[in-house]
């Protein structure tokens, strides 16, 4: 406008003073040229800036990461939960130890009693408000829970789950996006109070603010206030440069105006909150309040207290100058300035502001290692979800994903892998050994923990899900299962030959399997052959069973793997992943009820509406009576077979079922074991599949024991299903015998497979042994 006025004025001058054509005329022509050039450049420049700023803004505005939650911990009298496990779970959920217990998200531990101020949370099955309760624990078990407000006992309470990951496209930038609605009100209003009080009204630049700042700076003799609006600061953050030139200020102002032209205030504020620079972690810049909250406090933004919000807002002014880890005094002073601004503007009462200012900074000593916790498990989550969702949706729709991860079990599993491999190295095994481990709930198929690398923090090749390795003797139980299903021919006490044999293979070569101890053992029972993992006996048995039956049984148990129908399959020449092995053994451990392993139980929209549920589904296996008998045999592997060192490693004698596995040239070490409620699979070997001098019991079982030493567990349930029952058998002759006879052991049989002959000691009254009580309680352990 003003330029045009000048132009017409110039014309007028021209006509009124035609005589003066000399230097004045030249001056005006030159001036016109300048104006023309300026306008000619300005318009495209503004268009260019407009393009830049809108691209930048649009590019970041819409994406919301999906939030991945661990399972929520149920607390109830009788729960097996040592105090240290409860504390581990609380910490994973972002709870902090505090003497005050004045806010949700705090806990107070004294001896065996833990008081918890639970936050409100939208669980996958409904919202629960905040609440305070006390949990008492004795002997590793919760004895009682008291609602502290009502002073009444509680039968059931739960903790809001740990957030284990945010699935976001720009993960490398370390950003935890937040939606404006999820941002604490105090942050939204406080930010404006401190940085831009006129935010709601100005058009992008705030002349009054600039004047006020200039005046304040003049008065103080130094720069105490900035006049930049939040919009200008946002632009500055988009194109972060450090030159403080007039040209940059000019660009910033134009872009801020353009932003306000295109977008409304709430969008701009949301972008600001997610964009502003708030710290530096190594080479990575910490952008946005969501990320800063994790970086400084290891807490999600919506769980911060007023003094913490004040600190973050204070950091906007200079994240490195006020770095609370490096300069705590400066940071405290700045935070308190912000708190007084809060009280000035009525956001906090003077009293509350004073109280908040008296608190410590509450920052963690060092930031958590960047990014997702539990990469390997999150891989599994992505895999399950990818069957339904596009990767793009996971990254942008802000889904709330409820998973089955048990943080304390995961932490212990990671520690068991890392520590276990360190011990193996000490004992002379290769330092390059790798490992994977999967832990699942037997009855529900819920994956509680998963480790795919010896360094659990490393995201990369996930051996638990992707490493296909030969499973060795871990397959043998299936051969014996098939035999037990042929109850006319086989029982656990049926004798088979463990003698050398030579088989002609498809390529014309001969194959002569040897036993691990390079001996043959002659006539052995099925039970002995399985518990001691004899190869020759197993191949002989397998040949009678049929390779194709074995292959289809593997499929029936929930794993579709390509299996060559060659006799070496009986000894585990089948490549499966640890996760697939877990699936097979889940079926056995659950007495023949296969449950597809799950890592996700529900998915909600960002607003908390249910999108999908993954309910428990189970498929009964045929001939579950044979599975019952097999389960007993696998407890004998631990009691007297290849895994007999396990009880010593655990320091416990309860029944555990297990199977070791070793492959040719000791390349792979496997151990599969289950208790009543948990099944866990461990693999150890070299990535390049080179001989690793490992066996099932010298490596994988050690890691497995390292985990279960730290887990509360109950013994395997050995009650037989219908169609199988316990009998007393003479341990030498394998004939039926009486309970009180010498050498009597109790062995389960599939109906019709028990020995028909009996010892002399066997008395008629023993026939009534299978009494009503027996039937109910099954085998009693001696």
């Amino acid at each position, binding site marked *: 406008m003003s330029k045009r006025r000048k132009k017409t004025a110039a014309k007028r001058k021209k006509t009124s003073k035609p005589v003066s054509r000399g230097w004045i005329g030249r001056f005006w022509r030159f001036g016109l040229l300048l104006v023309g050039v300026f306008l000619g450049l300005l318009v495209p420049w503004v268009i260019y800036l407009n393009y830049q700023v809108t691209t930048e803004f649009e590019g970041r505005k819409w994406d919301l990461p999906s939030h991945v939650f661990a399972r929520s911990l149920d607390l109830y009298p009788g729960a097996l939960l040592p105090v240290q496990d409860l504390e581990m779970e609380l910490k994973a959920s972002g709870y902090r130890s505090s003497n005050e217990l004045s806010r949700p998200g705090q806990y107070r531990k004294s001896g065996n009693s833990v008081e918890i101020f639970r936050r409100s949370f939208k669980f996958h099955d409904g919202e629960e408000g905040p609440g305070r309760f006390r949990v008492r624990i004795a002997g590793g078990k919760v004895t009682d829970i008291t609602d502290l407000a009502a002073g009444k006992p509680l039968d059931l309470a739960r903790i809001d789950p740990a957030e284990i990951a945010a699935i976001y496209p720009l993960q490398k930038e370390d950003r935890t996006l937040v939606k404006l609605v999820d941002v604490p009100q105090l942050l939204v209003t406080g930010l404006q109070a401190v940085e831009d009080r006129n935010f709601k009204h100005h058009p992008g630049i705030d002349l009054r603010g600039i004047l006020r700042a200039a005046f304040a700076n003049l008065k103080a003799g130094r720069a105490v206030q900035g006049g930049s609006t939040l919009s200008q600061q946002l632009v500055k953050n988009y194109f972060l440069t450090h030159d403080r030139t007039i040209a940059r200020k000019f660009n910033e102002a134009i872009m801020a105006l353009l932003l306000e032209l295109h977008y409304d205030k709430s969008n701009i504020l949301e972008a600001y909150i997610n964009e502003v620079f708030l710290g530096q972690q190594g080479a990575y810049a910490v952008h946005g309040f969501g990320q800063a909250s994790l970086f400084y406090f290891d807490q999600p933004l919506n769980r911060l207290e007023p003094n913490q919000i004040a600190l973050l807002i204070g950091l906007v002014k200079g994240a490195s100058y006020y770095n609370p880890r490096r300069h705590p005094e400066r940071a405290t002073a700045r935070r308190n300035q912000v708190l007084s601004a809060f009280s000035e503007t009525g956001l906090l009462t003077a009293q509350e502001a004073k109280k908040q200012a008296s608190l410590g900074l509450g920052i963690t000593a060092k930031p958590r290692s960047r990014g997702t916790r539990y990469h390997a498990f999150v891989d599994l989550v992505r895999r399950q979800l990818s069957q339904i969702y596009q990767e793009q949706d996971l990254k942008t729709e802000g889904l709330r994903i409820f998973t089955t991860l048990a943080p304390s079990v995961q932490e212990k599993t990671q520690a068991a892998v890392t520590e276990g491999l360190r011990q193996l190295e000490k004992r002379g095994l290769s330092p390059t050994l790798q490992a994977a481990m999967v832990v699942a709930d037997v009855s529900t198929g819920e994956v509680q923990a998963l480790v795919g690398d010896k360094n659990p923090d490393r995201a990369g090749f996930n051996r638990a899900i992707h490493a296909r390795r030969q499973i060795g003797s871990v397959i043998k139980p299936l051969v014996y299962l098939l035999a037990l299903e042929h109850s006319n021919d086989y029982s656990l006490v049926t004798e088979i030959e463990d003698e050398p044999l030579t088989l002609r293979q498809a390529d014309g070569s001969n194959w002569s399997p040897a036993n691990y101890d390079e001996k043959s053992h002659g006539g052995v029972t099925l039970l002995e052959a399985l518990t001691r993992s004899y190869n020759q006996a197993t191949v002989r048995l397998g040949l009678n069973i049929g390779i194709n039956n074995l292959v289809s049984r593997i499929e029936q148990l929930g794993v579709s793997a390509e299996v060559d129908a060659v006799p070496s399959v009986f000894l585990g020449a089948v490549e499966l992943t640890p996760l697939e092995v877990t699936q097979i053994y889940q079926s056995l451990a659950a*007495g023949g009820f296969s449950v597809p392993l799950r890592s996700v139980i529900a998915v909600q929209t960002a607003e908390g509406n249910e999108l999908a549920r993954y309910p428990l589904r189970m498929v009964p296996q045929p001939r579950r009576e044979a599975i019952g008998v097999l389960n007993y045999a696998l407890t004998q592997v631990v009691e007297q077979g290849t895994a007999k060192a396990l009880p010593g490693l655990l320091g416990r004698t309860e029944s555990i079922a297990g199977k070791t596995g070793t492959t040719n040239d000791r390349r792979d070490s496997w151990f599969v074991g289950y208790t009543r409620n948990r099944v866990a699979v461990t693999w150890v070997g070299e990535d390049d599949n080179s001989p690793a001098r490992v066996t099932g019991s010298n490596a994988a079982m050690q890691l497995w024991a390292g985990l279960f030493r730290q887990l509360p567990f109950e013994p395997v349930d050995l009650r037989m299903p219908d169609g199988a029952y316990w009998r007393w058998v003479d341990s030498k002759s394998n004939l039926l015998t009486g309970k009180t006879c010498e050498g009597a052991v109790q062995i389960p049989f599939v109906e019709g497979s028990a020995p028909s002959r009996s010892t002399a000691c066997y008395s008629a009254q023993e026939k009534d042994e299978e009494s009503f009580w027996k039937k109910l309680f099954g085998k009693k352990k001696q």
Partner: protein
Amino acid sequence: MLFPVLLVTVLVLLSACAATSGPAPSQGSEVDSRVRAPAKEDSEGVQVFPLQNPAVKELLADAGSAESAGNYNQAATLLERALRIQPRDPEILQSLAEVRLQMRDYSQALNFATRSYDIGPRVGEICSRNWRTISVSREHLNDHAGSVEAEQKAKACMNTKPRSL
């Protein structure tokens, strides 16, 4: 010691006890008329039930209310939560089977009832509910012979002594 502690009680069934042994019935459903009611009637004289954790009891009651309100998904979610607390509780598994029956998911109803039977007491009311659920499910799955056989087994649940082997 190896086995879930079961409290086996032979008693003349009191109606008050019966009312707490399962989710509150919703009106007029197949589950009530063909599973719960006859099982209850059959089990007069014999009752076998596990000692239940109060947390599980609470969740079962909530699931019962959800089921009565026709909110089967929520009922199933609550029962699964209970199952995490007591993974081998035949009552929870049978309740899940009944919710599946309400949802007309007959194959899962069948499977849950089978599992409940396998790890359950195999006598008494639960046993009868197990087999009746199996019977109804099989019928819907067009296994009529299997359905009749299951019906017979439901009746055998009331023998105080298991069949001789």
